């Protein structure tokens, strides 16, 4: 049982995450108090969701990569705060589907650029990164606080349930739902070898566009989580999230080559990075050194993770 668990690509992130959790509790005993959990979870959720948003495009292979998910999160946040919440469309039942739809459309646009129009995915999504950032800046050019709205609860608790958990349920439910269809399996097959998939009759472009769209939906969910957390328009935070999210994906055992790894790994990778940040904060590491330590740990972590996870199994005929 344990051995099978350790053979998983996310094994390293799981062990690292648990170790960092323990270290956090030792360094700052209040961290372990259940009453703090909803807030901690809410602070982590936007980042974790951006990490999830980066994953499907990478899984789809062919150099697939979406670096525009961070700014897309900001765009979703700004659209929500500036346009939807103050209007009659501000209820959860209307605003959430609209924002998710925005994410899906933006993701599908990325996917179309990267597949049908054959842009290099890094370049295509780099262009869109600027476009989304620019749109977010334009819409949220005035500091805007959110009016009282449904997301307030999401940063705290809904009864006994931490609110942020509800947002994490969205990607989990979407993913589990898709696993009941051939989509997820096909996504991994396309990521593993697109020529084999194409010649077997898989509509590779469609699968990849759907993967980017799925990432867009997750990024929009991150936008809702961000709104819940800051209750204001923050058009400029997304950019920072993008690259750290890639680190989380890689730490979680999803190689950039595609076809291996998965969402759970990215979540665990994101959780590890978040816990590392809080630990360094709790240990009063000066912010001057924070980035350096952080980078070094990530580099070693990503290397170790690649060694522990995705071990290539060679044929012994």
């Amino acid at each position, binding site marked *: 049982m344990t051995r099978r668990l350790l053979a998983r690509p996310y094994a390293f992130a799981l062990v690292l995450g648990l170790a960092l959790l323990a270290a956090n509790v030792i360094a700052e005993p209040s961290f372990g108090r259940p009453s703090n959990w909803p807030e901690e979870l809410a602070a982590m959720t936007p980042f974790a969701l951006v990490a999830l948003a980066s994953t499907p495009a990478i899984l789809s292979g062919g150099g697939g990569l979406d670096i525009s998910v961070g700014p897309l999160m900001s765009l979703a946040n700004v659209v929500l705060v500036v346009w939807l919440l103050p209007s009659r469309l501000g209820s959860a039942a209307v605003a959430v589907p609209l924002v998710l739809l925005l994410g899906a459309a933006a993701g599908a646009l990325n996917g179309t650029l990267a597949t049908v129009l054959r842009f290099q995915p890094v370049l295509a999504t780099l262009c869109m990164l600027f476009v989304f950032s620019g749109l977010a800046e334009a819409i949220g050019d005035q500091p805007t606080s959110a009016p009282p709205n449904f997301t307030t609860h999401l940063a705290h608790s809904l009864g006994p349930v931490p609110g942020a958990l509800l947002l994490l349920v969205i990607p989990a439910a979407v993913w589990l739902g898709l696993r009941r269809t*051939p989509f997820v*399996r096909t996504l991994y097959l396309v990521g593993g*070898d697109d*020529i*084999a998939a194409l*010649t077997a009759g898989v509509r590779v472009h*469609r699968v990849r566009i759907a993967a980017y769209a799925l990432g867009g939906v997750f990024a929009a969910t991150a936008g809702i989580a961000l709104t819940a957390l800051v209750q204001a328009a923050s058009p400029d935070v997304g950019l920072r999230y993008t690259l750290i999210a890639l680190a989380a994906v890689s730490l979680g055992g999803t190689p950039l080559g595609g076809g291996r790894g998965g969402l759970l790994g990215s979540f665990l990778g994101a959780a590890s990075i978040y816990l590392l940040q809080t630990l360094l904060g709790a240990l009063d590491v000066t912010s001057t050194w924070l980035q350096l330590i952080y980078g070094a740990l990530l580099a070693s972590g990503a290397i170790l993770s690649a060694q522990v996870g995705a071990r290539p199994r*060679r044929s012994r005929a």
Partner: protein
Amino acid sequence: MIHAAATPPAHDVTPSPTNAAPLLQVRDVAKAFGATRAVRAATFELLAGEVVALVGENGSGKSTLVKLLGGVHRADAGEIRVDGADLSTRLAPHTTHAAGIAIVYQEVLVVPPRSVLDNVWLGADGLLRERIPTTVKRAEATATLTALLGSPPNLDAPAETLSLSERQACCIARALVRRPRILVLDEATSALDVATRDRLFALLSSAVADGMGVLFISHRMDEVAAIADRVTVLRSGETVASLAREEASTDVLVRHMTGSGHLVERPAAGSGRPAPGRVVLRARSIALRPGCAPFDVDVRAGELLGLAGLEGHGQDDFIKALCGLAPARGAVTVEQDDGGTAGIAGPREAARHGIAYLPRERKTEAIFPTLSVRENFGLPTLGLDGRLGCFRARRTAARLAAFVERLSIRLAGAEAPITSLSGGNQQKVLLARWLATRPRILLLNDPTRGIDLAAKRDLYRVLTELADDGLAVVMLSTEVDELVELMDRVLVFRDGTLGATLAGESLGRQRLVSAYFDGSGS
């Protein structure tokens, strides 16, 4: 619904109205890539219930034609009719199955990290809709793979844990489970071991009896003779002959393929060749796998030594042990010119002591696909082309020119991308790459796999000349004919150890093939 039951569907017993039209009719099909006219005028017919072999040298347009049938490329001109309906402008990879066509490509197209089951049913489902229930998928995959492999497969194992032959069996099963009416096998047998190939042929003959049409492409004349009802010959993208099985002797086919009146010149084996020189490479107490009997092998200068056996019986491990890629238990030593000896424990020592190795997987292990012919040729010997620390591309080109002539490499120019060459010519460039290092021992891992007869003939001639000049040549081969005709001595591997050594009088087809099987099974 593609199909609903695990049992083979009843094939139409009643003659269909379109019975008059051939199952597949290709007429004057043409396809050009830029200035290269890969297919000029291909014409042939395939009837239900027959096997048509498509033969031709590499570069004759066979693979392009297959890609047109698979909808990977679209024909510039001509007709591709299935049951009389012209599909030439409508074929796409996702529509070929609906048209009843299934294709197995020469490249072994599996998705390495995914399960055997997923690989077999790749492409059968829609984006969100599962078209075939999992239980049916498992039953069908098990039945087909058992028939191909001789034993039930582990459907949940990742494809990357399988041998090359088993992976190709997955690709063939992928085509068969879709129950095509037209099955195209593009060199699909070259990656199969002999036993799997024979099981495939048995499977095909029963499917053909049920009305399937098979388009069979192979460079192996024995395979063509074994299963083809008719043979169509392509030369430079044009159909030059369509022959019944009785007319299609190897000599006749070769004449049509090459366009010349000359038959294959069999290289003079053994008899006319000088006796081998002194021992240059010693392998002592080699144990390829735990528990396998250790054995010794000496390789002599000027010798052509063949390595043979069924796929996965140790010959591949042995050649990799000789070049230090996968050291085995035991010792491999090189006799140096000054009389000393040196152990080989890794590829660097092997290279330093004059051992050159040409790997099996040309596409992934040997060529640099983005580089030119010259760059591919010159990489290990760049040091020769420097002057005062500056690299001179012209010198490489000059050195290459000598090999182009000697090996009869056909290429547009030294700066053309390596991928613009046919497989046989790529292989010659790679051979030139290693010959340029002036090796004393040349190791070749199945160098003629998937290359055409003319290129093979060139290769045989060159290898014989090299051996006459004192080079020790060790060549793993899966082709019985070339082992028998070309080699001085053949080592047959069985179950991870040396099973038999054949040379001189004992080196004949029958003896060789029976040596593959002796001791295994019974």
